[in-house]
């Protein structure tokens, strides 16, 4: 058994040496967050992502049977429901999953709004999130079209009537949407392409950007009455160490590539040098704890992070997962 484990580690290291994706992924997964953010209020983004993965998987499985032809779409779904083992169940999962995804995305949006998490420096995360909501709604609309039942047909008629009201180019837009003079075969195939290729591609790319920014900018702090998050003091408060790193916080030379020794905020030096900061008493509650990471198969064998992973670690260490030890060990 130990031999097997050793073998597994060797295989992992073989890939890791070439790919180099494991270490950043593990660092991202185990990065520290403020303790007061371990709340269910922060779960909806992850929940929406889980539902997205579920929708992709069930969608691929439905596409094994579904026939995107106006004359056959509905009957292929009847076949799926009644003749394919558990076909009805997967179709129901996909249908209910879409309802749940819209609900969760809306709750996520409400939470982000109420927590003020859309403010600096996460404006672009919010803006992309708005597009993600629109894309999710687009997936729901194009998805219900694929049933090609009465609801789909007259729903398309409503869509065409809305589009026809666009000034000047309404007529050509209706033709573009329907793919022909009436709601028929070409309409279904283009909505199939939208639902299966176009919108999911854009959606996944934007989810990637959205997640990248969550990791890069850190999770937003729990909002507290009276504690104003100001753009002018944000970088100093949240991205620079308040006290010098403890003596134990030293990385052995050579462990860290020089490329990592850079600031989290190299381009915004002006932002960190104005206005008074929050009184010291208000930040005593914000201690850090390490969240257990579910995706660490070989954490024991990996080069562990420096010993600065302590409760006294400055908050900047938590905010930039790709540079977990650069700030706390090397900044002045």
């Amino acid at each position, binding site marked *: 058994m130990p031999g097997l484990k050793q073998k597994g580690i060797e295989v992992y290291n073989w890939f890791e040496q070439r790919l180099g994706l494991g270490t950043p992924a593990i660092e991202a997964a185990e990065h520290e967050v403020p303790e007061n953010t371990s709340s269910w209020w922060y779960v909806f983004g992850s929940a929406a992502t889980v539902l997205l993965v579920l929708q992709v998987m069930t969608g691929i499985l439905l596409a094994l049977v579904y026939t995107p*032809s*106006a*004359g*056959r779409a509905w009957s292929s779904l009847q076949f799926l429901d009644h003749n394919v083992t558990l076909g009805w169940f997967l179709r129901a999962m996909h249908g209910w999953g879409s309802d749940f995804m819209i609900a969760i995305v809306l709750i996520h949006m409400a939470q982000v709004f109420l927590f003020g998490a859309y403010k600096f420096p996460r404006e672009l995360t919010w803006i992309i999130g708005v597009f993600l909501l629109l894309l999710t709604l687009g997936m729901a609309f194009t998805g219900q079209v694929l049933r*090609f039942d009465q609801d789909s*047909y*007259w729903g398309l*008629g*409503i869509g*065409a*009537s*809305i*589009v*026809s*009201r*666009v000034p000047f180019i*309404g*007529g*050509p*837009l*209706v*033709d*573009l949407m*329907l*793919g*022909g*003079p*009436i*709601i*028929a*075969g*070409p*309409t279904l195939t283009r909505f199939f392409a939208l639902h299966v290729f176009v919108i999911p591609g854009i959606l996944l790319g934007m989810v990637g950007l959205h997640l990248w920014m969550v990791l890069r900018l850190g999770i937003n702090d729990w909002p507290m009455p009276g504690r104003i998050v100001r753009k002018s003091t944000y970088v100093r408060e949240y991205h620079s160490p308040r006290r010098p790193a403890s003596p134990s916080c030293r990385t052995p030379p050579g462990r860290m590539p020089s490329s990592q020794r850079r600031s989290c905020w190299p381009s915004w030096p002006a932002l960190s040098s104005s206005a008074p900061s929050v009184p010291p008493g208000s930040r005593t509650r914000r201690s850090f704890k390490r969240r257990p990471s579910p995706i660490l198969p070989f954490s024991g064998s990996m080069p562990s992070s420096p010993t600065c992973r302590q409760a006294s670690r400055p908050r900047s260490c938590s905010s930039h997962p790709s540079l977990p030890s650069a700030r706390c060990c090397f900044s002045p």
Partner: protein
Amino acid sequence: VPNNDENTRRSNAMNPNEPNTQNEQAVQTEAERVRSTGHSRRAFLFKLSLLANGAVGAVLAVPIIGYLLGPSIKKDSSGNSWITLGPLSDFPEGETRLVNFRNPVTTAWDGQTGDVPCWVRRVSGSTFQVFAINCAHLGCPVRWFAQSKLFLCPCHGGAYYADGTRASGPPERGLFEYEHRVAGDTLMISAGKMPTLATNASVEPPLTQLTGASSAKRLSALEQPKPRCGSCPG
């Protein structure tokens, strides 16, 4: 580092008469100047390759965009064609009936969606009105209620009188009408395209909101439909 280069270059430019004691340094400075202003062979070839790639992209974009926009720039898709709805005997005078027709433009895999319904109202003799099924508001299928003599839309409560004019609800105009003609013993309509506000398939003028006394007059007029021709009973 770039700033230092910039300063060196600028100071050289400001003092052109300053003697350069080291020839190597002068050559290097010249090379950096060329590089920084972008007038090197490398920069030229890079820009040329950008241009070539752009040209290839533009050539490829023409068929792709043409293919995508095909349905909206196709000329024959905007034209309706004349099709037969059925013999005149199918349509009793004074009644409004639902008729299905096969759309003149279909594909082999359209299935039932190639069938389009419409409402045929035979006023009298050879006087017909053929209404599209689609509500003028958002395209939902209107239904004829013979007892109340109204077309009603199930979606948002749009209502139309027997002659297709708007009675109530969100539609801003009357029902769309197909052009029709009586050819021998059959009724023909010009169809092919889903009627929307953009294509304006109606021959009726847009209607105004009924207000005040005029609405009462209109309603009383509907109680006794005025004859369309001198001899027909209406």
